[in-house]
């Protein structure tokens, strides 16, 4: 290690470097400049061309914020578990699916019985509670069966187990509810738009955003202001010392999975009210990946970071292709929206390796 650093410190391809710089530093600086320049050129071109109206940009922004809220809610599950166990629970997207898929049947029977139209808010609350319960159960079982026996195994072992568990959950639900696509009913009061002056925001998007914010505030309060939150933070800080202080680690870990699962389940219903289509056993996979990205973007292990990362990713996905790629003259810009999202991830990480709000992890924690 020391050797390679001495060699690369002074020369890159035979060219001497300024004192104190390594070749890697230079390449990263060049990457920063190139990516930032491309974004500025692309955005500048698009805006000068004037193809999109101001209202269209705003519509994209709101859609992005709503989509980002969903990512954020799922991302919280990743971040909570990572904060406590330092493991990535790759089956978390499927925990989200479990709640969303199971509840779609209850939602449709509420619609048929007329309950959804007569008492929409109460019905939505019941649906969210039910989905949270289902997802929570799945998450807790997941921890008990798949992760707890491996808690002291090398770190890659639970990671692979998580991927296996992900498939297990997907195909269990396929077995239970079939491979077809289902849809949530549309709720009448969510169909309109909310207008301030000339700006129109679809109520469904506003609803998603507000419910996500409310849930996140509840979570933040729970972690920062309650006894059990304090115990969670202590386990995250140092498991052994927490045990010595009388904290029941197993209980805290189960609680963490339960909270993450409940949020994912609620996100499943919120997602269903906002994007009713496409409910099937595979629906958790991509949101899971995106939410994981959001958690890393915001600084994994950090709760406000996951919220911010989710929103940021949602907005970038919605605005990025049209703003940047169109301006660069790239055909089929929308197909590349993941490229934009992940380029942003790289960009954020090369400026702030710990994520937007992340703190540098100490060697022991990381």
């Amino acid at each position, binding site marked *: 290690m020391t050797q390679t650093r001495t060699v690369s410190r002074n020369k890159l391809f035979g060219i001497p470097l300024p004192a104190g710089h390594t070749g890697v530093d230079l390449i990263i600086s060049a990457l920063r400049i190139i990516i930032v320049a491309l974004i500025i050129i692309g955005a500048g071109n698009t805006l000068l061309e004037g193809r999109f109206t101001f209202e269209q940009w705003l519509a994209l922004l709101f859609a992005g914020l709503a989509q980002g809220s969903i990512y954020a809610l799922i991302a919280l599950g990743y971040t909570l578990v990572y904060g406590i166990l330092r493991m990535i629970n790759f089956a978390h997207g499927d925990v989200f699916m479990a709640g969303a898929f199971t509840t779609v049947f209850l939602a449709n029977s509420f619609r048929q019985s007329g309950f959804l139209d007569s008492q929409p808010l109460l019905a939505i609350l019941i649906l969210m509670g039910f989905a949270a319960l289902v997802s929570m159960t799945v998450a807790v079982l997941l921890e008990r069966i798949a992760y707890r026996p491996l808690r002291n195994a090398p770190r890659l072992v639970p990671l692979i187990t998580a991927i296996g568990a992900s498939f297990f959950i997907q195909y269990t639900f396929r077995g239970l509810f079939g491979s*077809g696509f289902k849809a949530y009913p549309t709720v009448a009061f969510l169909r309109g738009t909310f207008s301030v002056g000339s700006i129109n925001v679809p109520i469904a998007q506003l609803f998603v955003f507000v419910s996500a914010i409310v849930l996140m505030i509840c979570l933040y309060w729970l972690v920062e202001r309650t006894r059990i939150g304090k115990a969670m933070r202590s386990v995250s800080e140092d498991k052994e010392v927490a045990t010595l202080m009388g904290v029941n680690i197993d209980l805290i870990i189960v609680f963490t999975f339960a909270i993450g699962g409940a949020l994912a389940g609620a996100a499943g219903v919120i997602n269903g009210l906002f994007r009713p289509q496409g*409910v099937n056993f595979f629906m958790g996979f991509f949101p899971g990946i995106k939410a994981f990205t959001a958690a890393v973007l915001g600084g994994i292990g950090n709760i406000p970071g996951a919220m911010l990362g989710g929103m940021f990713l949602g907005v970038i*996905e919605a605005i990025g*292709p049209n703003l940047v790629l169109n301006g660069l003259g790239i055909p089929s810009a929308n197909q590349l*929206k993941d490229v934009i999202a992940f380029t942003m991830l790289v960009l954020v990480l090369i400026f702030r390796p710990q994520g937007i709000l992340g703190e540098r992890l100490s060697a022991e924690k990381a």
Partner: protein
Amino acid sequence: MLARTMLLTALLLVFVVAVQADGHCDDEIGCVVLAPDDPVTIGVMSALSGPVAFLGEDSVGGVEIALNRRGRTSLGREIELITEDSLCNAEGGQTAAQKIASDELILGVVGTSCSGAAASALPVISAAGMLMISPSNTSPALTNADMDAGGLWQPGYYRTAHNDEFQGAMAAEYAMNELGAASAATIHDGDPYTDGLQAVMARTFGEMGGDVVFQGAVNKGDTDMTAILTEIATNPPDVLYFPIFEPEGNFVAAQSQDIPGLEDTILMGADGLLVAGFPAATGEAAIGMYLSGPYLSSDDYSAFLEEWDAEFGGTPPSGFHAHAYDAANILLDAIEAVAMEQEDGSVVIGRQALRDAVSATEGHAGLTGILTCNETGDCATGEALGMYLITEAEVNEGKWPPDVIWSKAEAMMDDM
């Protein structure tokens, strides 16, 4: 020395006798010899897991009903069905084909579900001397023998599914001639199937004098289509053609409602969305949407649906069950035509002879129309295609399938 020569001669003799007992195989790529108690074995390669698992369910059901109608026997033997999961991608096709090719008793395969899986399965199946008849591959490349032009055809490939050239062109003709559209936009999802279909549609529409204002793509797994729809709305087309699958197709249709500028745009999809759950899962946005797809209207098809309901319950989940039924029948007919009974009760089937028999299929009266295979394995003629219109009955009352408002066969009749 002498003893050694004699031993060699004796061994040679045993070998010759063994080959003769094998039944005089003079087929250039080998034979399948069925011992008296061997079943007639055919394979199925379908997407049985993953997001399009319904395609596999649909095809396997079609094959099962074909077997049921034959009493599950052929050549006086039981028919054994070996089912492999070929997913909907190259890796799945490769794996399934390797497994099939390792079983020397398998005579032919019904499959694969997806063109992407067929592209990697076909070289394996072809090299093994087997043949495959796909019920739902529609990519033009698969029956194009010109490798320089991207053709993927190899001996042993057949399909009862219609080539996208037919379906894409039909969508363009319908949009222009029947709907009076002057401009069109297309969306695909990066899959060779959807990309190929939109390319044919756009090309034909352009050749007919229409204006193709936008050709773009979404990703599989996208749920938010606002960005691409907003881009399309900057220059709204008369027709928006998105021959993609669920759930992305549902999202495009539903979200197009909320984009200012797309109110008057007519939505049009293809057989990927001609799925029983699509209208209900999309909601009101699906009302007035056109879907091209296989059009089946015979009495025999109604009987087929009744058998499906009795066997599996409900209706087939996708539009290729009848194609799978026809594929299985063409395969079994060919097997029965070339099988040679031996004196000892075994049966010899030449692999090349079997391919020749499938290639010679002419005027096969199937559920999907009259099938005649051409030299590169296209057995469907495109006449079994129709344009479906989704109405309120499909969305709210669960009616399925929707009514066919225009069909290629009828249009061909009118022209004559």
